[in-house]
């Protein structure tokens, strides 16, 4: 499996004065689910594109540092070869439809045809990908006629079918309705369970908190922190980076409730358990008071 190593990555878009990515270094272990958060323009998408090799192979501009995927330096590998290891899904599902295929089934085959996968293998891969994303029932539909959520799942399926080891998702749900968002998250979680490394940019902190193994916090092109979500969302300076913690964390912060390891809880279940145990102990106190 692919291990991603980023060393002192710096990047400046052509025609800009500011660094979009400023001296970023970290390592991602195989199979991890990484969430990337930060305010707008903080470099989240640029980081994704740098890992996928689109920076510097597609975009020009000043580039420094190195990104390795499985000892392969992305700068030196063409995007069309790299895409067999790293898949990327973009924000707008609409623009990811190739526009050269008439059915969902054929649409998913696009990348495989380019890769030169033999036909029998191709059919199997497409069926598997459609099954995984639960879009088998739309296989003969016209791609542009799908809803946003379905289209985005098709876009993910067409990447999955290429069997990359790493999948980058750049705000895949930002243009979807709540149901579409849920559909995509379910699908991504399934992929994560299969051991694929997932790197996801997302504005919904509850989801990031619930699914991520580690969270990358970016601001102004710099890496502020990379750690487990509890630790990230328990930071006191979160507001300075334009990030709002999950509601559960916010509530517990106001109430001053921390879990055993000293962080605020981030998910519903943990919060519930903590509050329960507190109310129980409170109950005891009240009981004792009553006896007195």
């Amino acid at each position: 499996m692919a291990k991603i190593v980023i060393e002192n990555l710096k990047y400046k878009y052509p025609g800009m004065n500011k660094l979009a990515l400023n001296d970023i270094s970290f390592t991602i272990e195989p199979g991890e689910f990484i969430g990337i958060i930060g305010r707008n323009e903080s470099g989240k998408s640029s980081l994704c594109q740098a890992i996928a090799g689109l920076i510097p192979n597609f975009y020009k501009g000043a580039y420094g540092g190195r990104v390795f995927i499985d000892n392969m330096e992305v700068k030196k590998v063409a995007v069309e070869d790299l895409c067999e290891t790293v898949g990327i899904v973009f924000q707008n599902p609409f623009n990811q439809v190739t526009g050269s295929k008439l059915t969902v089934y054929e649409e998913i085959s696009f990348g495989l045809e380019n890769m030169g996968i033999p036909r029998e293998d191709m059919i199997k891969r497409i069926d598997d990908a459609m099954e995984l994303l639960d879009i088998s029932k739309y296989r003969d539909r016209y791609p542009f006629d799908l809803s946003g959520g379905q289209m985005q799942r098709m876009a993910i399926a067409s990447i999955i079918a290429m069997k990359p080891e790493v999948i980058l998702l750049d705000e895949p749900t930002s243009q979807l309705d709540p149901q579409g968002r849920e559909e995509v998250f379910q699908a991504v979680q399934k992929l994560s369970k299969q051991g694929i490394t997932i790197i996801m940019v997302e504005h919904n902190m509850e989801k990031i908190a619930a699914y991520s193994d580690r969270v990358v916090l970016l601001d102004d092109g710099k890496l502020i922190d990379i750690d487990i979500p509890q630790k990230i969302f328990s930071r006191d300076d979160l507001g300075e980076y334009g990030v709002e913690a999950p509601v559960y964390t916010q509530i517990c912060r106001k109430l001053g409730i921390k879990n055993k390891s000293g962080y605020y809880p981030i998910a519903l279940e943990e919060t519930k358990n903590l509050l329960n145990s507190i109310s129980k102990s409170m109950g005891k106190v009240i009981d004792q008071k009553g006896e007195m």
Partner: protein
Amino acid sequence: MYIITAIIVPVLLGKRWAGIGFIILSIILLLSGKVLKKTLPLLGVSSFVLLTVLIIQGLFWSGNTTPLFNIGPAVFYKEGLNFAFGILVNVINILLSFCVLILTTKPSDMIENFVRKGFSPRFGYVFISVFQIIPQMTETMSTITDAQRSRGMETEGKLWVRIKAFIPLISPVIMSSLINTKERALALEVRGFNSKKKRTFLNEQVKTGADIYIQIALLLCIIAALIWRIIIWLK
């Protein structure tokens, strides 16, 4: 292949009946494909042009000598009409034979076959995507028209009003399609569009015996016409 034969053979034979023969053949093929109706608008538009050709040539062709009939003061000549009729047959022949190809074959199948034969996949992509992305752009256009209208812009009425409305309508369309194009280019890129590996195809190539026979027959037609032409030449 059929197009080439349908166009070359009458040209080589230089006889009008060959052209008419191919028109009839095209119509039969279109009928059997149940798409003859779709050719009607096409023929309607071109018939207007052809009619003008017929009138102009009938009236003014340089070789006109034998008056055939006259409508009011206009005199139609036999030679001119004859010449115009020749053009007519050729044009209709070309139109119909193209219709046979375009209306009976899915564009994607057609291009896929071209790509299989060694046509550049990039051009293939451009041709196919045009069929799908243009309708999307039309849709964007109508959304933008509605949006601008809801802001109080007049888009209907006199010519001048329409011309004034044109720029605020068309510029967002162009801008958004440029942005979309960039994103689509990225999406294609990450799906290995530029890959130098040998491509494979999801759809199997169906090549029946009939296909080959038809191709051979058409090829023979061309060769026969060619030989006939050469013989006439040599005489």
